[in-house]
């Protein structure tokens, strides 16, 4: 199974493992363009995203929130279209909204409502009967950690608590897709950790899929398995993080003492590509060769290996490369 991603002239094909890929793509963008006045905000986005947790990355003004708002039917596409769970964003908006939970980026609350009333009302608007809505409102507020403060007016909450209340209203009706727009904005490190842990828990529950929009690379790296990077309204890069992590396991950085030319020759004879600088070596392992083979060669030649790391492209590397391109 494959995922095709195109952004303007750039087109990439990324192969995915078939084990987690559902038959209908979570999000399918078909030449999607959004224009406000004369400004192109999103330009010809084409992609098919199937991951369990998808990260939407990009610098400020890249069009991340616009893409989310277009998927939710808040903005009309100028050309092209998109599908969420196979539903068209223009003709089947109501069906999409019935399956989605949305946590907006900015303040979104009714200050005179208590958290439990707000969350219950939102659940009822999603179609839950009043009694069930109240029960699930309590459960959602317990789950996000606002149990003690659930009868307080939301207007009196701190920034972190308001973020949690927004999360509670997004999950109260048990959506199939949870759209989180900058969920860790304004959170202190402990609260951020708690938010990330909850997102991971929900992802791992396999009952909900997540679209996380953020400009914080760490948040996306910690929670997502697919990343779509936007730049100036275009797709700059698509990355399957799990695939990248697996690919990077073949690249090794090593520091050693007591070696001569014989050691590097022996490694090359194994079929490895290697580059040596003083007592450091970078090695690309071919298929079938493992690190224990390197250790064996070192032991045979009395070479002491001081450090051996799998070099891996961090999301920051991927992001910076995408921005440079």
């Amino acid at each position: 199974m494959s995922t095709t991603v195109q952004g303007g002239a750039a087109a990439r094909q990324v192969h995915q493992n078939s084990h987690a890929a559902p038959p209908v793509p979570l999000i399918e963008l078909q030449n999607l363009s959004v224009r406000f006045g004369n400004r192109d905000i999103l330009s010809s986005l084409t992609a098919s995203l199937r991951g369990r947790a998808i990260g939407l990355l990009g610098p400020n003004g890249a069009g991340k929130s616009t893409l989310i708002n277009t998927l939710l039917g808040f903005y009309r596409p100028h050309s092209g279209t998109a599908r969420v769970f196979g539903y068209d964003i223009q003709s089947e908006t109501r069906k999409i909204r019935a399956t989605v939970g949305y946590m907006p980026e900015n303040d979104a609350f009714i200050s005179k409502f208590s958290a439990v009333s707000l969350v219950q009302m939102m659940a009822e608007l999603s179609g839950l009967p009043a009694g069930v809505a109240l029960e699930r409102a309590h459960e959602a507020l317990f789950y996000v950690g606002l149990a003690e403060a659930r009868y307080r007016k939301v207007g009196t909450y701190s920034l972190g608590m308001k973020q949690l209340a927004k999360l509670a209203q997004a999950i109260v009706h048990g959506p199939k897709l949870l759209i989180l727009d900058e969920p860790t904005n304004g959170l202190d490190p402990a609260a951020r950790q708690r938010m990330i842990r909850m997102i991971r828990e929900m992802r791992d529950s396999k009952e909900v899929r997540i679209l996380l929009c953020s400009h914080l690379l760490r948040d996306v790296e910690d929670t997502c398995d697919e990343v779509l990077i936007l730049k100036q309204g275009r797709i700059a890069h698509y990355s399957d993080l799990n695939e990248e992590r697996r690919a990077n396991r073949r690249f090794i950085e090593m520091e050693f003492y007591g070696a001569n030319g014989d050691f590097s020759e022996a490694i090359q004879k194994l079929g490895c590509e290697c580059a040596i600088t003083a007592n450091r070596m970078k090695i690309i392992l071919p298929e079938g060769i493992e690190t224990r083979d390197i250790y064996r060669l070192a032991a045979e030649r009395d070479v002491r290996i001081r450090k051996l790391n799998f070099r891996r492209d961090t999301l920051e590397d991927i992001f910076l490369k995408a921005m440079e391109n």
Partner: protein
Amino acid sequence: MAVYRRTYSAYTGSLTPEWSRWLVIFRYSRRNLFRSKFQTALFVGCFFFPVVGLGLIYLANNLSFLKQLGGPADILTIDNRFFFYFMNVQGVLAFVLTAFTGPGLVSSDLANGALPLYFCRPFSRAEYVLGKASVLGILLSQITWVPGAVLFSVQAALAGPSWAWSHVWLLGSIILCSLIWISILSLLALALSAWVKWRIVAGALLLAMLFFGAGFAQAINAVMRTNSGHFFNLAYLMRTVWNWLFRIDIQPGIPVPQAWIAILIYCAICLWLLLKKVKAYEVVR
């Protein structure tokens, strides 16, 4: 997602019918309306005149009692003028009640950006407006045409079928003039509430619309020596239509059909202004 389990779980139970979702907005908005003691007192105060009206109808239908007091037999006549004055008083009270309750309905959602929370669900802008307008619609109905209809029924019961049959058109007039007034007040209050997020200012603007509108209309009429200024006077337009509906002498100025059209245009403008603001996000072009 049970409280004790603290895990996420999807919802697989039954859902309410989609057409009924606007009632959720109505219920929650109405619940908040009566949290203010002042508004509750104002609402109760609006029933003073209907109670007085009931007393007057009873007295008018028991002339022997009036004669005992030494008054003339026709001191009280329950006719179209009686109901016209009743509707005028209740109409003013409806306006005052709207000025206090209406502006808080939409502004509280707009003030803290709550609209995306509504519209990211299977819930449309039209349903939102319907839900909010129905709060005012039902509230104002309770103090206008509902007591009006009760007074008419009591009078019909006491005066007999011949009176009821010859005055049945009055019931239609009471209901129709109330509905026009309720519609324009609701739309005006919601539109102002949407554009002015500060509810006190929105309430003041609603009052200003009526009083400054009348002043502005008079100024235009005086300067331009015309009657067209009355189009800016909402109260005048309403009075023209009400006079026609209650078969009272039509006041000079604007013909009735033009007054009808002007009121409909006012309603359309309010609705347009309201829908322009009631969006998940505003597009900055």
